[in-house]
């Protein structure tokens, strides 16, 4: 890297952080509120159509934000792996008007309705959570939380927890490779893989615990426990005035729908 490009990297930190899309540049808390409000509204309206509509809305939002290429395949896998199974279980095991008899079980009209509703609700929640993490880098979320007064220690725990998932996966892979090198069977069918994986858990978690102490000392060496008010190299974009209005409006709608349903207005 030339001196000029190091300056370019540095200049990137002189500007508020932008992900290059108005949707992605929403304040993380706004994004969180909007997604939660949409999920709650979809579920509170009842039936499968509102929840499915929320799922579709999330997909459209992902495409508009330029994250369709990563979000859509992921959500499709979730639909096939989770949504379909949930739908089938309900469709086959719910008693009611039999549409297709299959021995001791049967597909029923009520089962299909309940299966669709349940699968769509779960998928709206899964879709929302996935979309949130697709849109919001964890670092941005913690910065937004720190701006709201959350302590750096709490935001560290949040960030480190997510990083720990990656680190544990990497350590597990190393231990599995070491086992393979020693001639232990780690490949094969599901049972073989599970049998190979469980003994790996103890060393993986023990090494993670051992590393925690060293990391705590390393953080201490970086003045992490300093009582001085911490500053931040990365700066989030200024929250636009309409963002809280949008979040509050959607929140009010969600609460209105819940209250309306409770009072039997619709």
């Amino acid at each position, binding site marked *: *890297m*030339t*001196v000029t*490009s*190091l*300056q370019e*990297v*540095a200049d990137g*930190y*002189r500007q508020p952080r932008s992900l290059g899309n108005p949707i992605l540049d929403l304040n993380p808390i706004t994004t969180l509120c909007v997604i939660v409000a949409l999920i709650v509204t979809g579920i509170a309206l009842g039936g499968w159509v509102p929840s499915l509509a929320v799922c579709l809305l999330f997909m459209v939002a992902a495409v508009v934000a330029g994250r369709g290429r990563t979000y859509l395949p992921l959500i499709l896998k979730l639909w096939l792996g989770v949504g379909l199974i949930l739908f089938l279980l309900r469709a086959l095991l719910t008693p009611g008007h039999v549409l297709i008899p299959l021995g001791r079980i049967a597909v029923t009209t009520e089962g299909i309705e309940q299966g669709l509703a349940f699968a769509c609700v779960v998928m709206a929640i899964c879709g929302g959570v996935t979309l949130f993490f697709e849109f919001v*880098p964890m*670092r941005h979320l913690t910065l937004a939380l720190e701006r709201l007064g959350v302590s*750096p220690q709490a935001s*560290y725990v949040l*960030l*480190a927890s997510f*990083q720990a998932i*990656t*680190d544990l996966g990497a350590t597990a892979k190393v231990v599995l490779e070491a086992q393979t090198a020693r001639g232990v069977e780690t490949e094969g069918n599901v049972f073989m893989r599970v049998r190979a994986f469980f003994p790996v858990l103890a060393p993986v978690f023990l090494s993670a615990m051992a*590393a925690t102490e*060293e*990391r*705590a*000392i*390393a*953080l*201490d*060496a*970086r*003045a*992490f*426990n*300093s*009582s*001085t*008010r*911490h*500053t*931040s*190299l*990365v*700066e989030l974009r200024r929250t636009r005035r309409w963002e809280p209005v949008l979040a509050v409006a959607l929140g009010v709608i969600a609460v209105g729908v819940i209250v309306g349903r409770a009072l039997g207005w619709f």
Partner: protein
Amino acid sequence: MVLAELQDVHFTYAYADTPALKGVTLTLEQGMLHGIVGLNSSGKTTLCGLLRGIVPSFHHGELTGRTTILGRELADWNPDELATTIGCVFDNPFTQISGIRDTVFEEIAFGLENLGVAREDIITRVIQVIEQLGIEALAEKNPNELSGGQRQKVAFASIIAMDSDVIVIDEPTSQLDPEASEAVFEIIAGLKKLGKSIVLVEHKIDLVAEYADTVTVLHEGRVALTGTTREVLTDPRLRSFGVTPPQVTELAERLAASGRPLSRVPVTRAEAVELIGERMREEVGGGYRTA
């Protein structure tokens, strides 16, 4: 000014049966590179922890004797203040990065953020350190995806950025290949040139010989030898404490044993080159002799 003064210091870790330090008395001057060597479990890391204040504030245990850091009793130091006054780098490159920053640039800035430094000053300082260590190519990389050697450089950069006058370095090359080890020692040499006080625990005795001003040998929690690098590394008792002299010193010993001693015993490669060159010139001038 004295960097650290220890008088009859004993320390036993909580839950340990035997003390890690037994009556350590030692004075380390400021502005020098102090090498600490010794076998495993000889107390080197505990001594580093004591100088850094980790012992006994983080690693609890029973501490007796008198420990003075930069003229102030250890007990009088606020742990946060000591952490920023004395930087430290450890042996494991994988646990020294915060794990929560997306780029090396941000990782180096982490300590400065914690000290409440303003953004523009952070940027200026990080650029300076990156250029100083020649790690421009790493600036935009994810620290979690670097090799051990690269992580160790980033760990050094992060500590250097905080501009501590004293740096405690515990076996920085123990998990690195020779090339990465040399690179780390170049960084340490650069810090020494800047006038930093450095306490370095290291097993690679040849590197200690090259860079250290003083050497202390610890053995079973006690100071076995201490003095200038030359005094300690040429001391005939060195091997009895499990420390092998530098290769060039061994070579000189063997030449002496064969009846052809060099004019003095070298401890660094540069000295050895000079002395062997001198010998060769003598022998060429006076005709080759057989031993």
